[in-house]
């Protein structure tokens, strides 16, 4: 099966793109600007960023088709590039795994990735650091591909941290605002908390496999490779007391929860909206945040070995889904609504995994990738058209100005609301909630219901809420007859503030190494920051360029129900693709299939109607700018019910107090002791010598005293020893 070697090209293109952007991107723009102008130069640079991802998609497609054409039950052997970490006791090759799960993710990443890259070329056209943006974005794709293609947990972890880094760099892309870089730090650090669990879980897996190497017949030291750890995992784990598979699964779940923004580690995701909108669409909606679901699917054998851990996964998923949906009601920032909606939808995916319907979680990853990327890109188009103002309370009646954005976003809205049959969200939600409400009685029971059933019923409630808050968002943005930005008075002229630009030249003394620019050099590079247009009554929104609406249209096409209903044959084809040889859970034990359909329909349509009714009660009495007039529940929702305040501010404050305390201990107690010894010795020395001495003498005396005592003791013991 040598032709699967071409999987390396999938990684090669984004890496090459990254290196090109990093080392040549800026020179390309600078060099072309003189010939064709800045805009076209950036377009060329953007093309060099989009092309690798598109190429990777094409190669990925060809590999997938080849994989699909293999006879059922056959498995592609791991593709090894080189030996990465190799010890006598542990071997971690740089190896890729080509199977249905990894290739599905590859197609999502490179397919939606190239669309979003294309969109970003338009969205970032005014950006000074154009090539730096695409450096990070290409690197992200490369890291994400390593995450899903890696054939061992360590390689998955490499991608895992790699996407975390790119997320960090892109959230803090506009670094001049410290708030952005704080959001970036928060994302990285909270993810690291998850990584802590991932690492320990990974160690647990390796130790178990290594200890059973003879029984499993493993003769190389690849304790972490999927082709070694998956096939007989459940047989093996059955021999161990239940807490062992449970703790390994829960540790891995902590990792997944960090990346996929599950309670309580979701707190970084809303803040991550500080990044440019294409980043939110690609990283914080379609791909990176779903890697937790990928991990659960990949390690499903290990999760299935612990019903307790599965119950925890389902419950945490349900709690996250509910929290995200309720918090979304209190948001005024259009991206924040989508962020919490993402948190909520990720919760769904975990419900699916937690009740054993791993494929359904993956299925929702797929449909969600399309409609949520669509919604984010649409919101980006709106934000772009509204002079980068993200407050929905300033919007209204935009369907008149942004027809294409409106139509495509409306499709995304109906998809996430789960409108039956026609839209993809319906199919994937149904695939999750069906098995959930019918879940058997696992190890984790809450009264008469199993954890999975509780999660399922919460899921139905969340479906209703989802439809409602998304309707609220759409109404505020597109349907409100009032064009509310016209209520903002134009600022009293945008006089260019020269004082801010007048660089005072600080004299650093003689600059003999030429560290600083001379006046002439400084004048040459002085850039007057282009005037930033603010949203006010004089603003005229315009539809975005084709570069930006084309991806919207494509994504909208894929948000229709045919992807779930027809093409994937009501989930079953997708299940068979992901898990060949396994049997799909039969519905209709406790809750019949028909009941499920009715419930799904009722919640989605009911949610939309409820949203319309709420909107009909008119703004701005409780959607107004004056937060004091908001009802207390919505205010609390807007503040995330205080969770973020408790966790983030709490840990920063506690950490600060602890840190100051420890530092004081270090200076005054530990080092103080050292210094007191020094002073004492000096003082003794002064008494003896009656002359001025320094530390040296003091310490030296101390040392001699100690040494003398020690030598004395040694001589004593030797003498005693010899005497015996």
């Amino acid at each position, binding site marked *: 099966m040598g032709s699967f070697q071409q999987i390396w090209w999938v990684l090669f293109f984004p890496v090459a793109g990254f290196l090109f952007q990093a080392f040549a991107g800026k020179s390309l723009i600078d060099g072309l600007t003189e010939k064709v102008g800045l805009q076209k130069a950036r377009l060329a640079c953007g093309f060099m960023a989009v092309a690798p991802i598109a190429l990777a998609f094409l190669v990925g497609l060809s590999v997938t088709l080849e994989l699909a054409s293999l006879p059922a039950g056959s498995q592609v052997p791991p593709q090894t590039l080189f030996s990465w970490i190799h*010890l006598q006791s542990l071997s971690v090759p740089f190896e890729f795994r080509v199977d249905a799960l990894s290739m599905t993710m590859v197609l999502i990443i490179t397919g939606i990735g190239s669309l979003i890259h294309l969109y970003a070329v338009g969205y970032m056209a005014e950006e000074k650091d154009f090539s730096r943006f695409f450096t990070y974005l290409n690197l992200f794709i490369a890291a994400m591909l390593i995450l899903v293609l890696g054939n061992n947990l360590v390689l998955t972890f490499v991608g895992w941290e790699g996407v975390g880094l790119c997320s960090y760099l892109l959230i803090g892309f506009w*670094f001049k605002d410290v708030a952005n870089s704080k959001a970036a730090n928060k994302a990285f650090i909270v993810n690291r908390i998850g990584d802590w669990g991932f*690492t320990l879980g990974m160690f647990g897996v390796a130790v178990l496999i*290594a200890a059973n190497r003879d029984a499993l017949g493993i003769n190389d030291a690849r304790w972490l490779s999927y082709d070694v750890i998956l096939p007989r995992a459940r047989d093996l784990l059955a021999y161990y007391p239940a807490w062992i598979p449970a703790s390994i699964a829960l540790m891995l779940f902590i990792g997944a929860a960090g990346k996929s923004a599950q309670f309580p580690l979701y707190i970084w995701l809303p803040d991550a909206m500080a990044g440019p909108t294409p980043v939110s669409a690609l990283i914080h909606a379609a791909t990176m945040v779903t890697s937790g679901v990928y991990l659960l699917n990949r390690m499903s054998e290990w999760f299935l070995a612990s019903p307790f851990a599965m119950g925890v996964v389902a419950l945490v998923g349900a709690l996250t889904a509910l929290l995200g949906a309720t918090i979304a009601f209190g948001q005024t920032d259009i991206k924040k609504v989508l962020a919490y909606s993402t948190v909520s939808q990720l919760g769904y995916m975990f419900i699916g995994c937690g009740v054993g319907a791993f494929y359904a979680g993956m299925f929702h990853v797929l449909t969600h990738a399309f409609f949520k990327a669509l919604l984010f890109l649409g919101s980006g188009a709106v934000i772009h058209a509204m002079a980068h103002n993200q407050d929905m309370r300033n919007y209204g009646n935009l369907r008149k100005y942004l027809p294409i954005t409106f139509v495509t976003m409306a499709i995304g809205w109906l998809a996430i609301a789960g409108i039956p049959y026609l839209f993809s969200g319906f199919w994937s939600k149904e695939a999750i909630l069906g098995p959930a409400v019918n879940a058997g009685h696992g190890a984790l029971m809450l009264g008469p219901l199993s954890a999975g059933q509780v999660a399922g019923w919460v899921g139905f409630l969340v479906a209703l809420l989802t439809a409602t808050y998304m309707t609220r968002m759409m109404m505020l943005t597109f349907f409100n007859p009032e064009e509310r930005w016209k209520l903002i008075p134009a600022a009293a002229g945008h006089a260019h503030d020269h004082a801010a630009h007048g*660089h*005072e030249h600080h004299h650093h003394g003689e600059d003999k190494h030429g560290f600083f620019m001379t006046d002439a050099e400084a004048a040459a590079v002085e850039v007057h920051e282009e005037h930033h247009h603010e949203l006010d009554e004089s603003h005229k929104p315009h539809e975005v360029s084709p570069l930006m609406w084309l991806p919207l249209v494509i994504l909208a096409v894929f948000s229709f129900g045919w992807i779930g209903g027809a093409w994937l044959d009501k989930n079953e084809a997708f299940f068979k693709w992901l898990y060949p040889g396994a049997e799909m859970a039969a519905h209709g034990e406790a809750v019949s299939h028909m009941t499920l359909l009715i419930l799904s329909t009722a919640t989605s349509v009911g949610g939309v109607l409820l949203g319309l009714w709420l909107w009909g009660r008119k703004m701005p009495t409780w959607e107004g700018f004056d937060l004091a007039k908001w009802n207390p529940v919505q205010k609390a929702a807007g503040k995330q019910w205080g969770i973020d305040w408790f966790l983030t501010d709490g840990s920063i404050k506690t950490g600060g107090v602890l840190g100051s305390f420890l530092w004081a201990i270090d200076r005054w107690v530990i080092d103080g002791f050292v210094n007191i010894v020094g002073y004492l010795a000096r003082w003794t020395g002064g008494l003896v010598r009656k002359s001025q001495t*320094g530390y040296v003498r003091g310490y030296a005396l101390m040392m001699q005293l100690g040494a003398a005592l020690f030598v004395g003791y040694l001589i004593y013991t030797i003498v005693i020893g010899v005497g015996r």
Partner: protein
Amino acid sequence: MNMTPTGFGLLSLLMLVPVLGALVIAFIPEQFPKAIKGAAMVFSAVTLLVSLVVLGGFQVGTYHMQMVEFVPWLNQLGIHYRVGIDGVSLWLVVLTTFLNLIAVWFSFYIDKRVKVYFVMTMVLLAAMLGVFLSLDLILFYTFFEASLIPMAVMIWIWGGEKRNYAAIKFFVYTFAASIFMLIGMIVMAKLNADVSGTWTFDLTAIQGNVASGQFWANPEAARMAPMLFWAFALAFMVKCPMFPFHTWLPDAHTEAPTAGSVILAGVMLKMGTYGFLRILLPLFPEQVQANVPVIMALGVIGIIYGAIVAAMQPDLKRLVAYSSVAHMGFVVIGIFSLTHDGMMGGSYQQLNHGISTGALFLLIGLLYERIHTRLFSDMGGLKAQMPIYSAIFLVIMLSSVGFPTLNGFVGEFLALFGSFQAAQAGFNGTGWYVPVVSGIGVILAAVYLLWMFQKVFYGELNPKLARLKDLKPWEIAMSGCLVVMAIWGGLFPNTFLGPMEKAVNATRQMAINPPGSRPTWTDTSLEIADNGDLVRVLPRAVNGDMHYQEPLAVVAPGNLHFDVPALTEPRVEQQHASALKTQGTEVAN
């Protein structure tokens, strides 16, 4: 090891080149600073080249000492000139010569008492190499202490405001701790004479008696064992430095000139962990095993404590100094896990810390030369002003964070994995808290390093940094060398892990195997097989061809893994897990 004198050889040349350099520089008049700097560069480069020749001639398939040189010296005292190199010391030697070149390169910025400065640098280089090459205890001690003097002088003359205090504290603290080691060495020689009849400070000979069990079977020795152990351990723990003996480090680092900080963090701290590997583990197997809980606890405290205190520092250099306390903690828990993975990780992490922390100090020095401050309050927004500098800083910062594909990850990962294995097996009383809590140290590393990066590079440009130009090409080349090493170490760790593996494995077996089945350096018919077992092969000549041979017999199993006891019968399937069962198996294999 045989006692036939060999005369001087390549390793002596390695130490001789810097000594010659010091002499040559001493004869260049002070008014030609460029000639002095040039000479220092040339001699540093030649030393690096010689170390690369050593690397080229190094045989990977053995744990034994290679290129051994033995020149009789003080026969009555049993002190001889005896040097050699193995997998444990190989990369530390190369790291030393490499970082020294970088430090000398940076010292282009030194313009005060240039001659003395570079003489000190060269002497320091020779002394550090001596530490890693010595096979005689007194020789080791001499170099160990000799390296203190030039470093203390560097801090004292070219240091910052509190340099007097820092230099004296550094010198006396570390000197005072190692004086106990000297006494310990004398006692060890005496005890060795008791069992073997020869008075010698030869590390390999003493270890041979330890390995056979003779040495500590002597009731006299057994009675003094704890005391001797701590006499050695204390010297190394201060050097590392381990909590609570670390307070000399922030002062010394902060006050030292940049090149001094690079060497101090990059190489001199490793003398402590190298001492653990070279002397403590081979000579005190029982004591090491008995004291693992104490040392592990101090290592873990160091990781957390160093990280938290680092986060509170207002000064860049002090922050990185405290981060060293945390990072060296990983080396310690790796080594004292006494598992193969952990010890490989700990040994590798020595190199990684040398590269990443050395590079951090270098980068901070580059900035300090420009703006003469290291306070966060004077910084901010540098990313737009110095994009190349910030990109290099980012890579090095990530290497320090332990980001995969960079060197720090591999070492930390293996060290943590080793401590996890030890904890799982309850090996030497290692508790679960070791991997679990030191894992939190990895989170904290991200906290303080990202804060540092944010305060220096993000936000609005601090007016004090206005008009600052980016790095000069030679500075980019210099720091670029370290970036290349960080990436190489992360992508191709086998380059480094391969040659050290057998020696590290042998060191571990010296510490954990029962007497009689421990590896020794004196018996060349012992070898570590490719599967990690200690095996008997045909005897080979010292310094001869050490290529891998087919084992004749297994002396001791490798014990690379611990068993995880399983139940005898599989657990009864959960009755109600019907929904779970239907998911079926992963891709049929």
